C-alpha cells in the first residue's frame, strides 16, 4: 500500500458567516499528482492557505508525513517539506533570478556556496539559466511562473502546491510547463495543483478533486470527474445537468 503524505480531515474555515472551506477530507499518497479544480470562489486557494498555515482552520486537521501540522506558521510548514507557489506570482523583484532561487535553497544550508549550487541546478531544470543575472522584475510572465516554481523547488519540498501556474500562458508555453511539472513529479515530488486549464490538469494528474462552495463535490480519475453530473452542474449551471440524456 502507498504511503499517505498529506491528509486533510474535516478541514473547515469560516470568514464571518461564509464557510470558505467546508469539511474537506482528502488523502494524497506520496508520489501522486492530484488536481484541485472548481469554479471561481470555490475555496481552492483558501484550502492551500489552510494547509500552509496562512489561515488557521476553524475546525479540522492537516496531517503531513504522519505529523499534525495544523495551524503551524507558514515558514515552519515550509521547513516540514511543503513548497507552494502563489496565484499572483511573488518574485523578489530587486534580486536576480539566481538570488531568488538561492533564498529557497537557504532552507537546507547556511553556506552561500552550497545554496548557489542547489539553486543553479534548479535554475537549469527550469530553463532559467539564460536569465541568471537578470533582476526578477525584468522577467516575462512565463519566466516569472517558472521562477515561482523554481523558488518553491529550491526549498526541496516533499509536497509541492501549485496555484494556477499555467494561467496566462499560451498553448506552447502550457505544453512546456506540463512537461516540466511531469518531470518534477517523476523526480519524486508529490504535487497538488489548482488549475483552470483542464486539459493540462488531466495530462498531469491521475486524480482530480472538485470543490464547489467550499465542499468537495467529486473526486476520481479525470474521466470520472468530467462525466460527473454534480461537476457539470457546478460549472455550467442547473439546466445543463441532464444535457447528455
Amino acid at each position, binding site marked *: 500500500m502507498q504511503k499517505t503524505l498529506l491528509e486533510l480531515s474535516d478541514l473547515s474555515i469560516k470568514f464571518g458567516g461564509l464557510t470558505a472551506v467546508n469539511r474537506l477530507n482528502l488523502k494524497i499518497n506520496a508520489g501522486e499528482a492530484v488536481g484541485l479544480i472548481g469554479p471561481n470562489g470555490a475555496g481552492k486557494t483558501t484550502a492551500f492557505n489552510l494547509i*500552509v498555515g*496562512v489561515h488557521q482552520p476553524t475546525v479540522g486537521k492537516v496531517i503531513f508525513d504522519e505529523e499534525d501540522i495544523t495551524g503551524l*506558521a*507558514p*515558514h515552519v510548514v*515550509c*521547513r516540514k517539506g511543503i*513548497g*507552494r507557489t*502563489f496565484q499572483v506570482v*511573488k*518574485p*523578489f*523583484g*530587486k*534580486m*536576480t533570478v539566481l*538570488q531568488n532561487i*538561492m*533564498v*529557497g535553497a*537557504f*532552507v537546507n544550508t*547556511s553556506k*552561500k556556496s552550497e*545554496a548557489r549550487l542547489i539553486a543553479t541546478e534548479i535554475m537549469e531544470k527550469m530553463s532559467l539559466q539564460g536569465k541568471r*543575472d*537578470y*533582476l526578477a522584475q*525584468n522577467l516575462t510572465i512565463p519566466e516569472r511562473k517558472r521562477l515561482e516554481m523554481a*523558488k*518553491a523547488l*529550491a*526549498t526541496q519540498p516533499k509536497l509541492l502546491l501549485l496555484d494556477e501556474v499555467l494561467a496566462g500562458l499560451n498553448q506552447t508555453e502550457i505544453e512546456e510547463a506540463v512537461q516540466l511539472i511531469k518531470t518534477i513529479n517523476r523526480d519524486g515530488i508529490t504535487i497538488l495543483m489548482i488549475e483552470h486549464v483542464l486539459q493540462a490538469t488531466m495530462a498531469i494528474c491521475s486524480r482530480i478533486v472538485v470543490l464547489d462552495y467550499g465542499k468537495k463535490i467529486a473526486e476520481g480519475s479525470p474521466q470520472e470527474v468530467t462525466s460527473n453530473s454534480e461537476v457539470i452542474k457546478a460549472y455550467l449551471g442547473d439546466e445543463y445537468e441532464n444535457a447528455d440524456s
Partner: protein
Amino acid sequence: MTGININKNSVILAVLVVLLLLLPMVVTKPYYLHVIIICLLWAYLASCWNIIGGFAGQLSLGHGIYTAIGAYITVILFNTFGLSPWLGLFVGGGAAILLSLMIGYPTFGLRGAYYALATVAISEGIVVLLNNTGSIGRFTVGGAEGLIVKSVGSSAAAFQFNSKIPYYYIVLIMLFLIIFIAKWIKESKLGYYLVALREDEDAAAAMGINVRHNKLIAGAISAFFTALGGVFYAMLIRYLEPNAIAGASMSTQMVFLAIVGGSGTVLGPVIGGILLALISEIIRFYLGGQLMGLHLFIYGMIVLLMIIYQPRGIIELFEKIGRRFSRKHNDEGGRSGAEDPSGA
C-alpha cells in the same frame, strides 16, 4: 574581466585607506578635523540605520533613541561609578538591543506603517522623558539642561583626549567596522533573507523565512551599533542634550543620509553620510551667521533635488560612472554588471 575589476577595486580601496590614515597629517587645524570626524560619524550612523532600514526595509524614524540610550547609560555609569566608557558602551549597546526587541516584537508582526509609527512615538516619548528627568536616585540624568561628561583630562581609559586625532582614528575604525559588517550581512544568508522579506513578506515566509525573527536580528544589530555611535558622540562633544542626541533631527538625519546615498547598498549610506554632512557643514560655515535658518533651507533644497533626480541614491551615479569607465576599457563588460543589483 571580474578578476581585473577586483584588482582595480582593491587598489583603489588600498589607496583610499592609506589616504584616510594619513589625513590628520595634512589636516592639522582642529576645526577641520572636527568637521571630518562629524562627517565620518554621520556616515557610520547612516550605515547602522541601513541594516534595518535599507536591507530589511523597515522604516525606523526613531533611531535617535539608540544613540541616546547608548550615550546616556555610558555617561551616567562613567559619571557615577567611574566605569570606563569602553566597558560602559557594552552596557549601553546591550540596553539598545533590549529596547529594539521591545519595540520590534509587537510591531514586526504587523504590516504597513506600524513599526515606523511605533518608532516615532517611542522616540518622542523618550525625548520628553529625558528632558524632564533630573535624576533617578543617585544617577544624575540632567534633564533639559543636559548632562556633562565628567572631565578627567586626556585619558585613553576614559575615552577622553585633548587632541582630535584619536577621535578621528576611532571613528574611522568604527566606520570600517560597520562597512565590513554590512558587507558580511549582505553576502550572508541573513542578507538574502532580509532583502527577500523586504521585497515580499508572504513569499519570504512561504520559503521558510521566519520574518519577525529575522527583522528582530537586523533591528538588534542596527540598534547596538547605533548606540556605539551615540557613545562616540558623547565622548567627542562631552555634553548630552536630549533634543540633540535623541530628537527628531538625529533620527531623521540618519534616514536622509542613507536614502540619499542609496539605502540597501553597502556603500551608499557611507557616501551619502560623508557628502551631505560635508555640504551641510560648508553651508553652515558660510551662511550660518547670516539669516536664521537659511543654511537649513538650502540644505533641505539640496536633499530634495537629490531625491527627485537620483531617487536610488548617489551610489547609483557612482556605479553608472564606474560601469561606463570599465565598458570603455573592456568591450564585453555590459550585461552582468548592468543586471547586478548588489553592486557596491
